[in-house]
């Protein structure tokens, strides 16, 4: 029974294979029939686009709108203006003279160095307010003073390296910032 089924399937396959080219030839011979659709394999080849003739610049002056200056949506190569900006600083801290152990000295010096690094980052990102005063008496400078203030909240800063040597701790910190964001921070002051 199985053999009969296999043989009949084989025979039907052979018959279909033989009929197919005949049908195609018949269809090719009658191209005017609108109901018959012949699906041919489509081969897509990607080639470099043909050189398009560059139109000559218009005689009238072109005005560039701010929208035209925005980043193109699908460009992989970003212009320098849109790249993230990295700010690196090195903060320094000193261990207090009276510490109970070298470990405490290291911890405190590191903490001071981190704070110094944060201050340097804040100075770079948000800027410094400076006040100066000179006291002059009888045409002589009695006292000269410069005061600087920094006040900022810094987020996403990372410690890159910590070095502790001879009681001095140096902490290198890095902050990655978007130039657009930075400009808006500076503008909001």
């Amino acid at each position: 029974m199985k053999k009969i089924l296999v043989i009949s399937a084989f025979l039907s396959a052979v018959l279909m294979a033989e009929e197919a080219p005949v049908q195609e030839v018949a269809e090719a011979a009658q191209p005017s029939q609108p109901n018959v659709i012949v699906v041919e394999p489509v081969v897509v080849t990607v080639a470099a686009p043909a050189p398009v003739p560059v139109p000559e610049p218009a005689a009238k002056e072109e005005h560039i709108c701010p929208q035209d200056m925005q980043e193109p949506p699908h460009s992989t190569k970003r212009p320098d203006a849109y790249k993230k900006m990295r700010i690196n600083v090195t903060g320094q801290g000193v261990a207090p003279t009276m510490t109970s152990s070298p470990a405490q000295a290291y911890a405190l010096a590191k903490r001071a160095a981190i704070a110094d690094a944060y201050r340097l980052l804040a100075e770079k990102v948000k800027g410094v307010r400076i006040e100066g005063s000179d006291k002059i008496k009888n045409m002589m400078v009695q006292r000269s003073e410069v005061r600087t203030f920094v006040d900022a909240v810094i987020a996403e800063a990372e410690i890159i390296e910590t070095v502790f040597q001879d009681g001095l701790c140096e902490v290198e910190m890095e902050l990655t910032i978007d130039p657009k964001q930075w400009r808006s921070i500076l503008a909001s002051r």
Partner: protein
Amino acid sequence: MRKDLLLAFFLILYLASSLEASQTYILSYRAQIKNAVVISESFHLTHAMKEVHAHPDQKLELDTFKEEDLQVILEKNRDKILEFLMKYGTHTRSHETVSDNKSSSLISITIPPTYITVDFKNDYAIITRLIID
């Protein structure tokens, strides 16, 4: 019969331990640095007095050093916690005065009070930072 009872008992114990609710705390930090030397430092941890509507954010795993007191665990891992929390915003204030070519500076850094939850699991304390909804 006894075996079944024992199994059921251990199963209940396991479920009870896994369902243990995590505790919510408020953590804050402040340090003052004068002329590159730390002059004062405060690191506070307190229970949240009321329920907080917040969602969990980043997690940090801390070694408990086989301690059970959370204050001790945090004290031993202070550097890690500070580095973890400082990433999310550190308030920096600096006053520097240069008078007659002599400089003196005072920097204060503050981590604003932050909600955290603490879960204990396999000798590790898992700190989760919460963001208020």
